Every structure is written in C-alpha cells, then in structure tokens.
C-alpha cells in the first residue's frame, strides 16, 4: 500500500528556499543573511533521502536494518536520510514505554552520521524539540519546550523524541538515529494517555496538512542541525572554547521557546518509574545541562533525566 505522507527531497528543498530561508531572513534575532545561507548549507543533508512507508514496526529498527543492509551491499548510508511511516505497529518510547502511533501522526527517524564534536553531539537532542516547537508555533499554537526536548501545549504532550546511537556492523561507522513522533491528526489516544497527550488537530479544531507540516518540521531540522555545525565552526575558528560560553544560537533559541527556566519541577532519571526530587530550575548551561536549586538552597546540575512540572 503506498504511503499517504510522501514528501520528497525536492519538495523539501523547494520549501526550504521558498519559506524557511525567507522567514529566517526576516527575523531580526537571526544571524545576518550570509550566515543564514551558510547554516542552511550545513544542514542541507537533512532529507537528502526520504523513504516513505505506509506501515512498519518501528522506524528506529528500520533505520538500523537499512544501515546494515546498505553496508552489506558495499555502499554507505547517506547522512540525513529520513525514514517515515504512516503508522507504526510496535512503537515504543524510552525505557520501553508504550507509544501510540496510528495513521494521522508524523512518525519517523532521521539518520545522521556522527561527524559532530562532543559539544554539538551533546546538544543534538535539543534540535528535535526546538524544530518541532518552531513548526507548531508557525501554526499559531502556543507550544513550549520542556527540558530536554518535550513539546507541550497546555501541559499536554504533542510530541516525543528518542535519540539513539548506532555502531554500524560492517564499516564501524557511528550514526545518530533521531526518532520523532508528533501528534498531528491522530485524535484518539489510549485511556492512559488521554489527559497527557494532545494532537495539533485537536487544538486547532480542524485537520492539519500532514505533508506541509512534515516539510516544515524537516526544514527546521535542517536549520537547527545547520546551527550546530555553524556554531562548531565558530568555536573552532576562535581556537578557544569556553565552557561558560552562553550565546550558542541553538541554546538561545531553546531558551526562547522553553518555559522550563524558573519552574518548580519533579526530577527523575525515569520520571514515571522513579521520581527523585523536587527543585526549581535556575538555568541551563552551555553544555545543555540543567541547573536546579534544591529546597536546602544548594544547586544541582543534571546532564540527563526528565522533568515534570509541579
């Protein structure tokens, strides 16, 4: 059965140059025009190959299998390959949590070869939350990012992201698999998720053009992956990288979109199974780590884990 959602690299390119470049150029907070082109060029690998499927078990598994098969045939996978599916038969979230992925949502995986330096690699998961939130806000929806990359509106989750690394078996190349699941026109959730999850069409009261939203999200991923590479170049150029550098463009945009700073939160490595402590978020560091103040007045820094707003 042919896939319903069928964006192509050509349609993504057209969208990028027609809409994304212009919207970035008109934003006074964005870098100067020459740098905008440079950033888009850096991110241009995103969507260089787009596979569209009607159904599969999991896109992350499909990505691993695809990399393995391509390498078996003596070729290598194009970094930036996107695998999309209209529906997932056996989706899962982190810690083997169940995930609901019926027709109507945007379910996929972006394959990136690990060409990043440590700092960019650490910030990679932020690109998903920032890109999704930007695309959702373009629809006029008041969404925000909760550290690390949850996208929420009115306290309900619009999207879920997974980033996993994969060491390819034949050539030993490292890849990052950026899994995304965004609730677009899927309006029915399992009972356990009804009060926690929401879709774009539920918020807007009408269906959203899935194809257009996919292009918008991938265009913003192009920009934000490009930003990571651009910032890497800037840091290498200065030959000195301060841990305290605070003006990383991706981090600045994360701060613009996030409502986490200043919030009272429950923190846990696996928040659903084992919440650990309550704290107030006081900042985000240059390496993406979150700074929280505990009730005894001491600060704690976490490089991973999950938050729940209180």
């Amino acid at each position, binding site marked *: 059965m042919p896939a319903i959602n069928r964006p192509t690299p050509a349609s993504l390119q057209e969208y990028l140059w027609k809409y994304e470049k212009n919207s970035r150029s008109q934003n006074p907070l964005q870098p100067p025009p020459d740098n905008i082109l440079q950033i888009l060029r850096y991110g241009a690998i995103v969507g260089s190959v787009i596979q569209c499927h009607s159904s599969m078990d999991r896109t992350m598994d499909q990505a691993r299998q695809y990399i393995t098969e391509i390498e078996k045939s003596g070729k290598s996978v194009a970094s930036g390959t996107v695998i999309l599916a209209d529906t997932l038969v056996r989706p899962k979230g982190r810690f083997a949590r169940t995930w609901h992925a019926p027709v109507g949502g945007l379910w996929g995986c972006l394959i990136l070869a690990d060409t990043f330096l440590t700092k960019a690699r650490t910030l990679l998961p932020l690109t998903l939350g920032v890109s999704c939130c930007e695309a959702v806000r373009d629809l006029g929806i008041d969404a925000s990012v909760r550290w*690390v990359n949850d996208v929420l509106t009115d306290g309900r989750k619009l999207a879920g992201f997974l980033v*996993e690394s994969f*060491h390819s078996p034949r050539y030993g190349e490292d890849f990052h698999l950026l899994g995304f699941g965004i609730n677009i026109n899927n309006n029915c959730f399992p009972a356990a998720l009804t009060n926690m999850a929401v879709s774009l069409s539920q918020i807007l009261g009408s269906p959203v053009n899935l194809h257009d939203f996919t292009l918008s999200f991938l265009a913003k991923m192009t920009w934000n992956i490009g930003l990571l590479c651009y910032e890497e170049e800037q840091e290498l150029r200065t030959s000195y990288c301060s841990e305290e550098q605070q003006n990383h463009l991706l981090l600045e945009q994360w701060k613009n979109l996030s409502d986490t700073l200043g919030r009272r939160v429950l923190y846990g490595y696996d928040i659903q199974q*084992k919440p650990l*402590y309550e704290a107030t978020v006081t900042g985000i560091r240059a390496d993406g780590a979150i700074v929280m103040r505990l009730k005894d007045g001491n600060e704690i820094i976490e490089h991973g*884990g999950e938050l729940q707003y209180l």
Partner: protein
Amino acid sequence: MAEEIDFDAILKKYHSDPYDYVEICATQTGRVSFKITEGSNVNSPSGEWLHIPGSPLFEITRERNPKIVTAKTNGTIASVRTELEGQFVEAGEKLLTIRHPLKKKEVIENILKEVLDLFPAPERAKYFFSLDIQSRIEKKGARAITIKPGDEIIIMSLMKRDTPIYYTGEAGVIHSIYFTPGLSVDQGQPLIGICASDKLPLIQKVITRVKADWDKLIETANLEE
C-alpha cells in the same frame, strides 16, 4: 588476573598505610589560588544527591573566569605545591595530594579493582544496564550473568541521547557494579568489574580473607600503639 594472590603482602600493605593518596591536578589552564594548606582536613560532597560540594581546594582563573575546584574525597591535605600559588598552570599539572583514610569496604574494593577486569565509563553521563541484562540481573543476580565481547551491556544516557555500550573485555561474570542508575558517572570511572567464572572462588576468597583479617590487624595495630 594473577592466579596466586599474596594475601599477606596485600593486607600488610594496607595495614601499614591504610590510605589512598589522591593526586589533584589542574582541571584547565589558568592562574591558581589555593584554598587549603598542608594538614587541612577536607570533606567530600554530601547531601542525599551528593549535591553539596566538597571542601574548596583551589580557585583557577582563566580569561577572568574563576572556577572553584572542590574535593571529591575526604581526608587530609598531604602536600600542596605552594610554589604555584598565583602562578599560571597548564591543565593536568599536579597541584596537591589528599590523604584519604580507607575503610574496610574500600580496602576490599581496592583489592578487587586490582584483580577484576574493570569496564570504564567512556564519558561523564548517566548509565543503565541494557533491558536484557537488567531483566537477567533482576531474575538471577549480577554474578549469574556472563558477558562476552560484543554484548550490548550498558546504555549511556546524556541529554536524552542513549548510546549502547558494547563490552570489549574478556568474557566473564559481572562481579561488581560501581554505578547507580540515575546518578552521573565521571569519564574513566569503572562501571562494572568482570571476572572469569573460574576465578569467582578466588575473588570470594579475597573478600572473606580481608573481612576476617582486617579487623584483627587493626586491633593489633591499636594494641601496639
């Protein structure tokens, strides 16, 4: 791992000098200003989440950005390179040594670390066992789990990026687990200690021997004093 372990020599070594000497080096380049003197007592991080920093050891300033470095272990300052006070030092330059008094449990751990194959953390991150290994540990206990090179054993998690870690050492059983899921582990710190199945009795002998003899040695030492 040595087939024969000279327990008497090991115990004597720890008995005669039951301390770890922890060298503290400059974490980055910069101008150093010490916060301690020789003989000062220093505390390790405390609090339920080890969030209260240990005693300040020195301040290092680079590009007008001062950074206080605190003690990660408790003890007494055994030596300080006071000649470096106010000087610009390179990252990695040795600055001071903390003499850390060992407890019986730490002595056992130190000896085990000498005889086990240690699998270190590749980055500062949070770690947890892969789902398969975790469920096997829950059912049978870690020491019933045999791992071999190439097995996916641990997931490294950093900013919600999960990286599977594959075992690269000799095949064996998971004898010691040095990390707690949810707490960060520094790069290079051991995550697990592995030993070959046939060496397990020997390892157990080490533990039993230290447990039995350590208190006796300490008692004797106290009497002699």
